[in-house]
């Protein structure tokens, strides 16, 4: 009894380990040349979202918000450009002069509605918590 179970244990373990058939090999996953860049991009998007939220919550000063947002956008643009370069995609066409004219027609002339994207806010903000553009009504950058 002991000998039999010892034999089964030994033979079983060794056979299972050594006997690999061709169909047991895993399907090769084509490695993506941009996987790590996409990860980076997802992370920066997340950072931008967080930043906007923090600003909306009121934790950041206007200057901090603008500066950090710009540097995040720059980094993101660089990552996207790099992805496009690797994949050989042509960069997006240059946008029209007015970035998003039809996206959001301002509903009221209240100071708390963003003239660019139409987002509404409970309190007055210098910059929109949604699109980040100045809330003053003049078409900024």
């Amino acid at each position, binding site marked *: 009894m002991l000998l039999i179970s010892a034999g089964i244990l030994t033979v079983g373990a060794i056979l299972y380990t050594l006997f690999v058939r061709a169909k047991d090999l895993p399907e090769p996953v084509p490695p993506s040349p941009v996987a790590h860049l996409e990860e980076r991009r997802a*992370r920066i998007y997340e950072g931008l979202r967080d930043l906007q*939220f923090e600003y909306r919550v*009121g934790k950041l000063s206007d200057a901090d918000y603008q500066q950090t947002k710009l540097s995040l956008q720059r980094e993101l643009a660089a990552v996207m450009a790099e992805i496009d370069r690797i994949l050989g995609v042509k960069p997006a066409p240059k946008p029209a002069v007015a970035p998003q004219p039809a996206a959001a027609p301002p509903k009221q002339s209240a100071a708390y509605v963003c003239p660019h994207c139409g987002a509404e806010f409970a309190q007055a903000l210098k910059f929109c918590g949604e699109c980040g553009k100045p809330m003053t009504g003049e078409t900024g950058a």
Partner: protein
Amino acid sequence: MENLGALAILLAFCLSLYSVVGSLIGKWKKNLFLTISAQRAVYSIWFLLTAASSLLVYALMTGDFRMAYVAAHSNHAMPALYKFAAWWGGQEGSLLFWSWLLATYSAIVVFTNRSKFREMMPYVVSILMATQCFFLILNAFVVSPFQVLAVGRGITEVPDGNGLNPLLQYWSMAIHPPMLYLGYVGFIVPFAFAMGSLITRQPGDSWIHTTRRWTLVTWLFQSCGILVGAGWAYAVLGWGGYWGWDPVENASLLPWITATAFLHSVMMQEKKGMMKVWNMVLISATFFLCIFGTFLTRSGVVQSVHAFAQSPIGKYFVVYLTVGIAATAYLILDRLDYLKSESRLESVVSREASFLFNNLILLASCFAVLWGTMFPVISEAVTGEQVSVDAPFYNRINVPIGLFLIFLTGVGPLIAWRRSSLESLKRAFMWPAIGGFALMVALFAAGVRHFYALMSFGLCLFVAWTIVSEFWKGANAIRAKSGGNLFGAMFELTHRNTRRYGGYVVHMGMVFMFIGFTGAAFNKNLITETELGGVLHIGKYELKVSDLRDGENQNYAWNHAVVEVRSGGKFLGSLEPERRFYKSSGQSTSEVAIRRRLNEDLYLNYAGVNENQKPVIQAYIFPLVSWIWIGFATLIFGTAICLVPSKIRLQYARTEVVGMVGKHAPAER
């Protein structure tokens, strides 16, 4: 049966060796069959070790006293739970348990990554299996759990075993060691992936994303292990301490501290691609401290109550540690170019900079603990005289460090990434700081003169305030946008970014624990003999010993005192501290009785009767201790939140952002 067990271990050892070599050769020769076969060996090893462990547990359960391990750690009278727990109750069994856990982890790693990381996996497998191989050498050749008594002695069998140490016959002792081992062993997974990606120079930080959950879960196990151990010490050892700076306790704390530092500083790498070298160092240090802790516990290098019997395994650990650390250091130094930082610091007043200080403080406390633990050895080597440091040394150094750490816990999360101007800081900190300061003044006015306690309470309020206001402000911002009630908004808020808000909850748990630790500044104790019907006074309580009883069962004899507790004439209930005498091991233990309340615990220990035939009662008041266990529960809850995937990510994955070529964005899980 013992032959079968020993055979299984021996086979597992051979297979682990095969797996290390096969994996590497398969990688170098690009032979996929060999690589897969090496991965299969991992499953085989798991199966073999499961078989061996089952045999050992079966022997313990059925009381096969021909085997040395069973005779030493089990007996007939023990309840089944403790018979099972005897698996990790002694040196040999616990090393087998360790091997089994490692095999389990490895099998899970291989299974979950079976079609991923083709470049890196062979190295990951070989690192895991090299460690497995090391432990199996110990299991098979040095401290075999399947040794029979007959070897080298005249006897072949004893009628009954010694049983598990009575102090360990307590429910949480059945949980504490496995938890701690799950923590100790688990850190090898992030370490193996870190090394794998370092060896193959993987682009990006995929090792971090892949092992994030591993690290967190392992960290949670480690925390549970430490805190359950503290709870056990508090409730069982009979002197009300939950932490004694014992070398073995320290050994479990060290990797926990570096892992905590790692969990924080890894964010720098994820967000900004900085501190890559440092993160490698931290994860390696964590892993090697785990091994070092095992070494410390088992080799008898330093004196400790917890230490297992002295054994020859010390030198094996020294060899493994030396080789492992040297190889890791070489790898890191050789690949510094791969670990180059991708960006820079924008400002000194930023989250990034606060993480630097967080890391410094954590590492400093880790170093202080390590230094204190090793000081007897070091001083003996240098001066010839063994000088040990005791609790006052650790407290004097770690209390200020801990206070600074809790301060950073409040400050760090409120400083924005990249930069924070004075105005932003003022918005975030003015009210919490005023609140904390006001509490200190109020407590001082109320007569609290203990400097550290004042600081600690003030800082705790400060941190709690910042955390609550984070939730409050965030939830209100969500409500302003999408309506709903406050709880719904908080749920939404947490779900949006589980890591951050789960992290806040963990921080809150730490605040609760610090409140509990601070209570120790106000402990009271009273040790006295009394008589039946005698009344003792401690704090606001009146204790009356109303009865003394005794009896016995199969496992132990007991006698206990019935103590009526009154406060201001009001009857609060009675406590029954007990003293036990375990028959098979001839040891006695005390079962303390604790009246746990949020403000203070009343803790009674019955020491039996003295030479004058009078009962001796030891009474303590431990203020705020319960907050440590509340903090523990909060910590588990917070970590669980961190493990839930954030909602953001999933949405992002579905959005199919422009520029994606027929592929989903990497949704990390």
